[in-house]
């Protein structure tokens, strides 16, 4: 088929629409599961420490990826937050499709890497503040949790982090 003929049949480049919509139910396991239970029931945020390299994992995990050592046992768990310091942030203004819903998330919204008080452990979460002028590395923030009865043991039981004074 010559290129020209191929073009001719491109009058309608027959495109086949195929939407993927597959449900999943991921098991949280013993460690993330426990941490999410604590968040749901007691509103507490936990990290756990590798006994060998001392680095903190947030949310907690069973094995340290660097040392291949189990982080079993209560002495490796430490409560962190709810207050913390923003290390890095980014304000999303151009919406993109969220795979979980197939729809874009409402913009603008801010995602920040937050180091929580109590241990050198950081994770990403939403910030309430979306005005770039009011966002600064080093600013202090605090977790805002859903009311207890609305929590379902998901990392989004924390709605977002709001700005607080020092």
């Amino acid at each position: 088929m010559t290129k020209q003929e191929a073009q001719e049949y491109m009058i309608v480049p027959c495109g086949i629409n195929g939407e993927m919509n597959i449900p999943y139910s991921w098991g949280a396991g013993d460690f993330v599961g426990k941490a999410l239970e604590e968040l749901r029931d007691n509103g507490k945020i936990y990290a756990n420490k590798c006994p060998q390299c001392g680095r903190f994992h947030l949310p907690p995990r069973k094995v340290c990826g660097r040392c291949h050592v189990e982080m079993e046992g209560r002495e490796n768990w430490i409560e962190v937050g709810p207050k913390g310091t923003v290390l890095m942030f980014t304000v999303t203004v151009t919406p993109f499709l969220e795979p979980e819903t197939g729809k874009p998330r409402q913009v603008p919204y801010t995602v920040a890497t937050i180091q929580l008080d109590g241990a050198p452990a950081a994770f990403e979460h939403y910030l309430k503040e979306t005005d770039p002028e009011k966002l600064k590395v080093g600013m202090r923030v605090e977790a805002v949790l859903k009311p207890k009865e609305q929590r379902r043991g998901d990392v989004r039981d924390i709605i977002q982090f709001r700005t607080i004074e020092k």
Partner: protein
Amino acid sequence: MDEKVGIIAVAQTKYEECKEGVDLSEMIYEVVKEVQEKTGLKFTEDGTGIDSTVTCSQDLWDGRTISGEWAADVAGAHLRPEEKVAGDGVSGVAYALMQILSGHYDIVLVTAYRRESITNGRLVEWMSVDPIFHRMLGLDFRSAAALQARRYMYKYGITPEQCAKVVVKSHKNAKNNPYAQAPKDLSLEDVFSSPILSSPIRALDAKPVSDGACALILAREEKAKKFTDKPVWIKGIGDCYDVHFLGDRDLADCDSLMGAAKQAYRMAGIENPVKEIDVAEISEEYSYQELLWSEGLGFCGRGEGGKLLDQGITKMTGEMPINPSGGSLVGNPSTVAGAARVVEAVLQLKGEAGARQVPNAKTALVHGIDGVCGQVHHVMILGI
């Protein structure tokens, strides 16, 4: 193959219909930890431990792009090689063999894992068929397998009883397998009365949803002998693709399985499979497939899969038992099924198969499949 590579340790989880709330990393860690403890091998970079990791998983099954990331932290990927075979466990073990023979690594860890219960397997299979001509019809592997079953039974007179006997035999064998997923005492009648899924396939003809993981360690000959007195050597491998569109081939044929078997037999120097192979662990997702794959593997002539079963050759007490473990029909996640076949064959050859042990087995055949209607076959010959 000029050099010998041996499997020095194997581990598998119990296979369950749903490991509720279990995290994939923790399930993988269970089996990786077991093979590490059996050998004392750590993840090192100075050649004294495990040099590389091969994982077997598929993104759409695990709901995560680069699903090898679930295994990365627990299977030693930090500043080390970890490569994912997006296909069956037998294909992953063959790939690890090539990594060692290439001279780059001496000891390789292979892990295959899946929790089918976390998603709808039919939708994942639906996304594994051609998007332009097949997917809009809503085809999945189950309805496609039904088309293959119908064609095969029509063309060679395979009877529903013969298919049902495969199910009964598999569950009977699995009674002796502590890892098996809830084997049942079944009669032919039970199979015939189980609900119809896609004619002629009934519920008990089909493999159940299953969760589980496997881990294996392969080592070059000199090193293999340091870790076990009975390494299981890989004597031959073979992989082969068939066409994809269902209508492009007569579904009663299995050219790609014959191709894969030919490669493995030539490499292992096997002329008469039934005589020279003591035990076979093959991957079947539907009952008719054990009969069709038996023909493709050359255990009997074309169309004689049913007769081979009726003659009792493939029973536990037969000349060449098929699936002493019970196989996937009783419950193995796809992709992990192939690795489970290798694990079971290694246990048979090391004499550690307990109640399901085939007496003095010296040579075993393992087989894995990928794709719709067994489009891709992987065959491997193991021996001590």
